[in-house]
């Protein structure tokens, strides 16, 4: 064989090996080799599944935009997005689009660019508002001289969600007490709302309390007595949810129900759809949503307790199978993994003191503040036929920017002004709200002043 032929053979073999290796990596869950750069905190859990966002090899920006909206579109609608796409597709804003093409999410949120990524995965300069609101001081003289990189400071404005910051809302909640006399944490009402849950198997499992003797475990399945005892005291047993309600799936070929030992979230979702969807949308469950292996604390970027690193996150990792103790899920489950300053300071906070009193029957239900009171708040869910109270299992839903917590959490117990100040104080957040806010955000004052000045002007004009 000539030397030229040998070179060709080597070339062919090495091409096949490299091509085969790349194809194997492309088909596997670990696609790290293709990552062009570190992803943001919101996406790193699923960054090794390129197809989660790059759903099509062809199609360009529109494909990415559709991927963004498939996960974030509903949330933007729910918060009455202040800058919807339609604002930028309006031809009269063509000059603005020339400066910032906000018709697509990637105009402000480019992934794989850690060197230019700031909080909330924003990749444009902080003073980006200047492009369209340069003349704001003409309409709001109080804003004269303010730097445009302060627009999105805590307690002022957000690009998308301003539900807790718009002027009339600020005016409606002026002069509120730091701590309200009446606490408004919603009570859960699952049982009363079952008629609003379309898939609830009420015929198979009527709402009547079950005893141990009524368990419907098949005779060939061996069950630990401890497991049965745990189930027997749960809300499940009290609501007629028997063993097979969770431990069975429909066997299509046999046209019958088949026992399963380890049901996962795909079973929970049949009765707890909104809650499971929330879980799958948040950092705990987003890998499962993409059919990847479950998230583990070892993968987290936040500090986690070392002994928790291998725990796989699914519904039962917090709720524990059979016990389904919501109090455990509300605090101890969180603290069994989370190891950051804010989490570690919780048990010496006033919020925990209230939780301790409530859980030890020293205070009324709803008066305590657990981890989930703030990070998985109870919220109204519109099923189409009516509202029911659900626990928002996407812990990121109100976390970034943190002003989203104003309406969903803080204002249940605190006045708006105090809440805005507290959320703007990073030190206070770290120590889990020990002490008072060290700074005052003037949003409410500015709103009040504007109205007062306007009224004074009108009186002056009337006198002329």
């Amino acid at each position, binding site marked *: 064989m000539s030397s030229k032929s040998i070179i060709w053979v080597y070339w062919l073999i090495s091409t096949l090996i490299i091509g085969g290796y790349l194809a194997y990596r492309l088909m596997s869950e670990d696609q790290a080799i293709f990552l062009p750069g570190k992803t943001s905190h919101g996406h790193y859990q699923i960054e090794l599944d390129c197809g989660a966002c790059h759903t099509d090899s062809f199609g360009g920006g529109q494909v990415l935009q559709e991927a963004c909206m498939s996960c974030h579109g509903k949330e933007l609608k729910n918060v*009455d997005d202040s800058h*919807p*796409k*339609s604002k930028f*597709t*309006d*031809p*009269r804003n*063509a*000059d603005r*689009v*020339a400066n910032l093409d906000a018709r697509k999410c990637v105009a402000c949120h480019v992934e794989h660019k850690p060197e230019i990524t700031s909080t909330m995965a924003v990749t444009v300069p902080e003073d980006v508002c200047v492009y369209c609101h340069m003349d704001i001081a003409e*309409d709001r003289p109080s804003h004269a001289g303010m730097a445009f990189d302060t627009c999105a400071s805590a307690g002022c404005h957000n690009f998308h969600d301003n539900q807790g910051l*718009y002027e*009339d*809302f600020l005016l409606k909640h002026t002069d509120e007490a730091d701590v309200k006399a009446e606490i408004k944490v919603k009570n859960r009402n699952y049982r009363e709302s079952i008629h609003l849950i379309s898939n609830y198997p009420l015929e198979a499992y009527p709402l009547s309390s079950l005893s141990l003797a009524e368990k419907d475990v098949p005779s060939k399945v061996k069950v630990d007595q401890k497991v049965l005892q745990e189930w027997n005291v749960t809300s499940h047993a009290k609501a007629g949810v028997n063993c097979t309600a969770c431990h069975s799936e429909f066997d299509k070929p046999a046209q019958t129900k088949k026992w399963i030992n380890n049901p996962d979230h795909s079973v929970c979702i049949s009765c707890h759809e909104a809650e499971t969807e929330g879980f799958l949308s948040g950092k705990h469950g987003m890998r499962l949503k993409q059919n990847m292996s479950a998230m583990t604390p070892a993968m987290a970027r936040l500090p986690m307790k070392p002994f928790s690193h291998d725990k796989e996150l699914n519904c039962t990792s917090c709720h524990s199978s059979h016990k389904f103790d919501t109090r455990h899920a509300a605090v101890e489950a969180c603290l069994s993994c989370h190891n950051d300053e804010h989490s570690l300071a919780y048990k010496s906070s006033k919020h925990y003191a209230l939780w301790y009193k409530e859980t030890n029957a020293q205070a009324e239900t709803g008066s305590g503040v657990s981890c989930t009171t703030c990070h998985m708040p109870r919220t109204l869910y519109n099923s189409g036929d009516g509202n029911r109270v659900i626990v928002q299992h996407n812990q990121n839903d109100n976390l970034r920017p943190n002003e989203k917590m104003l309406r969903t959490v803080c204002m249940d117990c605190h006045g708006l002004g105090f809440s805005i100040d507290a959320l703007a104080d990073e030190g206070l957040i770290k120590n889990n709200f020990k002490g008072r806010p060290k700074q005052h955000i003037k949003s409410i004052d500015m709103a009040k002043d504007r*109205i007062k000045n*306007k009224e004074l002007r009108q009186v002056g004009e009337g006198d002329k």
Partner: protein
Amino acid sequence: MKTRQNLTILLLGISALVLGACGETKTTGIQPKDMADALHKVMESDRTVYTKYIVNRLAVQEKVIKASEHWKDDKALVLPAQMFRYGAEMVAEKGANFSYSLLSLWPVNKQNSPKTDAEKTGLKFISDNPGKNYYAEEKLGDQNYFTAIYADTAVAKACISCHNDHKDSPRTDFKMGEVMGGVVIRIPIGS
């Protein structure tokens, strides 16, 4: 040889006819003005129905429910201007080949002031010439548009009371039947 020449001439002739037909400037189908006029008739009618039969009747006459800018928080009716704007946003989301908006020389929200030359001229024209519409062509970005502007008048007491009493309204003396603003419809035309 002669046959080949004749065939070449015939082919050239056919090509010229085809190309000539392609270059013909005669336009078929609905004209932008007719389309804009038709769209406006639907918009104006729907808007009037909502304003008179829903908002004015329930909020002003029978006082059974409020209409509020913050309708979600206040558990109230959507204001007529919001109903119109939400519709425009939904149409835009669906990728329709036209857009529309509600603008005014005296807007409650400053973002709804006239901005382009056509908007400035048109809003003044419809205000100074009751009953007449304004039509123009304008280039925004890289696209040419046929732009039509129609008067938006106070058809119910709810319109004038809301605008005259609003803290951000630059004008507080609107009367029934007066032009309060204009509906701007844009249809993209050849670039």
